């Protein structure tokens, strides 16, 4: 099965085969990344621009390392500090960069759908590094790779996603992903942090951690943003930790070999107990970061190849 997507904007419009192609290729890069010499020439001569309209340390450095290991010339644009402040629109910024002939644009934006809009205006591959509350596809892919390596499969698993689902693009992308892979999804959150109509997404919804975690294979914790802690969504961080924070006691309801995940950065003592986060037998949080680089390398390589193939096809037709 060939990978034909021209952009990676979200998981929703990827096929199951596309996902498997990315994960299979990523496995090879996991091996490469563990070698002393971590460099290939797949993207040699190509230009990758990272445009982050929202602050990010982890995702941006992960994309940067991924591009450099593939041999691309990587440029980071700190968008907060540049043209947007001067009143330039997103589309004009995109057209300006497009004129510099990049091959890959990695974009994070605070508004849902902004990366889709930008992708319509440029003629290179666009990777969504998170748009508003919409999607964060490479996070879901790295989560999938982490789960597959720990559990040996992605189907017929029971996965709990816990915390601030309402404002989370990670949760949305993972819901699309796990549904495509035919796993069971359980969402556990206070009702104020659940999006409206979420019960129609092919998920089971729980308010109680012990009940929701019963017998699950995977526990995915989400970060509680600081701005949601002011009393408008939850009464206090201590009440949140008491009811929805992941502790050893709550985790005991999951399967004995259940893994614990977190997209980072963590609030220890708010959504997760520090000891669990550091427990090498349960926590795969560090491995998630490692998988992130591999998955991004795989996604960028496949997108570039799909574009090259599409161009060649057009050439044949002409």
């Amino acid at each position, binding site marked *: 099965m060939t990978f034909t997507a021209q952009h990676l904007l979200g998981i*929703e419009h990827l096929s199951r085969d596309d996902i498997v192609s990315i994960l299979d290729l990523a496995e090879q890069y996991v091996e490469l990344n563990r070698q002393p010499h971590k460099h290939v020439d797949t993207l040699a001569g190509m230009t990758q621009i990272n445009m982050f309209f929202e602050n990010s340390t982890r995702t941006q450095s992960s994309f940067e390392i991924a591009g450099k290991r593939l041999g691309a010339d990587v440029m980071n644009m700190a968008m907060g500090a540049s043209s947007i402040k001067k009143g330039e*629109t*997103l*589309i004009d910024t995109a057209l300006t960069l497009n004129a510099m002939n990049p091959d890959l644009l990695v974009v994070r*934006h605070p*508004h*849902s*759908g*902004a990366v*889709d*809009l930008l992708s319509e205006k440029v003629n290179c591959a666009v990777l969504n590094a998170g*748009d*508003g*509350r*919409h*999607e964060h596809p490479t996070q879901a892919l790295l989560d999938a790779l982490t789960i597959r390596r720990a559990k040996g499969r992605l189907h017929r698993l029971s996965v709990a996603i816990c915390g601030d689902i309402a404002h989370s*693009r990670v949760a*949305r992308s993972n819901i699309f992903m796990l549904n495509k892979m035919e796993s069971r999804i359980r969402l556990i959150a206070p009702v104020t942090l659940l*999006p*409206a*109509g*979420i019960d*129609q*997404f092919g998920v089971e919804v729980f308010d109680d951690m012990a009940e929701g975690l019963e017998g699950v294979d995977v526990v995915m914790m989400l970060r509680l943003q600081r701005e949601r802690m002011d009393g408008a969504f939850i009464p206090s961080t201590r009440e949140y930790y008491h009811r929805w924070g992941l502790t050893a006691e709550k985790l005991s309801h999951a399967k004995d070999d259940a893994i614990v995940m977190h997209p980072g950065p963590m609030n220890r003592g708010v959504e997760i107990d520090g000891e669990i986060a550091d427990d090498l037998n349960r926590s795969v949080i560090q491995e998630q970061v490692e998988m992130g680089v591999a998955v991004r390398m795989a996604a960028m390589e496949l997108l570039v190849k799909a574009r090259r193939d599409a161009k060649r096809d057009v050439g044949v037709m002409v």
Partner: protein
Amino acid sequence: MTTLLTNARLIDPETASEFRGSVLIDEGRISGIIAEGDTLSQADEIIDCNGKCLAPGIIDIGVKVCEPGERHKESFRTAGEAAAAGGVTTMIVRSDTEPAVDSPETLQFALRRARDVSKVNVLPMAALTKDRAGKEMAEIGFLLDAGAVAFSDGDAVNRNNKIFGRCLSYAKAMGALVIGHAQEPVMSDGACATSGPFASKLGLPAVSPMAERIQLERDMALVEMTGVRYHVDQLSTAVSLPVLERAKAAGLRVTAGVSIHHLTLNELDIDGYRTFFKLKPPLRHEDDRIAMAQAVASGLIDVICSQHTPQDEESKRLPFEEAASGAVGLETILPAVISLVHAGHLDLPTLWRALSLNPAKVMGLESGRLAAGAPADLVVFDPDKPFVMDRFKMLSRCKNTPYDERRMQGAVLRTFVGGTEVYCRD
């Protein structure tokens, strides 16, 4: 000068009937309705309608003409041309301009511009409070003298019940009509979609339909308290309708409108983050759309309006959350609502009750009727003519219509204002 429009299918909203016949126009007014078979009068000019529909011109409450302030978006000239092409013979224009129409001087400027360049009748609303800021009352008395037909702060909902209540009392004493916007402002703040699974999937900030009902309940309480004559610019959700029904049953002097967009589109249309479908209030669930169409058919909703809101390309070519709200509607109001007839929700006379007769009653106008003595503001149209909407063929200066490339039915053939033909389709 007399004109006879013959061989027409007459749509009479007052008697809720349609019949074949002719209309005689004399000195800008309708001087006779002649049923088929009766003796035709002589006239200076005879126009054959070829069996097509002839109805009172549409009276559109709540048109935004961007004068003063943003003439690059829409002027009285372009809005007038768009209205004539759309079968709209009277525009009740909004006060939410830059600056707001909140003084007799600004109002007179707008009226002068309208009189000089608009092809159709223009009646202005004025702001209820200075700069629509909700703090100080506008000069309601002077504005009435200058020609204001209604008072409204547009979508700037007044959160201060004490001041808003006083404004309503004062307006009541002056005999003025107040037009309100029923969206609870704190809940609606920042929302650009209706809450539910679809908005959640797109990750857009969304508002519950209850925000409309909450504000409507408040407004009805203040109307009851003050006794003011009150028109709700547009309702869009099923949960609001029982509130309106109770208010009417209790004898409050309340009427309500609905926009063509909320009658013909639903929340699914924003898929792909298409900003031309970004409206205020946001598009609703399909059940709400059907409830609104039924409420127009039953008469609970009095008025259909276009909520014509020009936005240039720059303000729409942005991420959905940042893009401006609103759509132009003067040229699409007729084909849009005729889809409700083709879908079987209502018949043409019932539709025209909401397009011309009721708006005329709300605004206290003589027009909007097919009766001897009424101003000869008329539209000839073919309800069945199919076409594919092309936004670049519109006369409105801004082309932000959500119906672009849509297959539609219903074409305006001729429009008359005061007996003068202001539009004729080639």
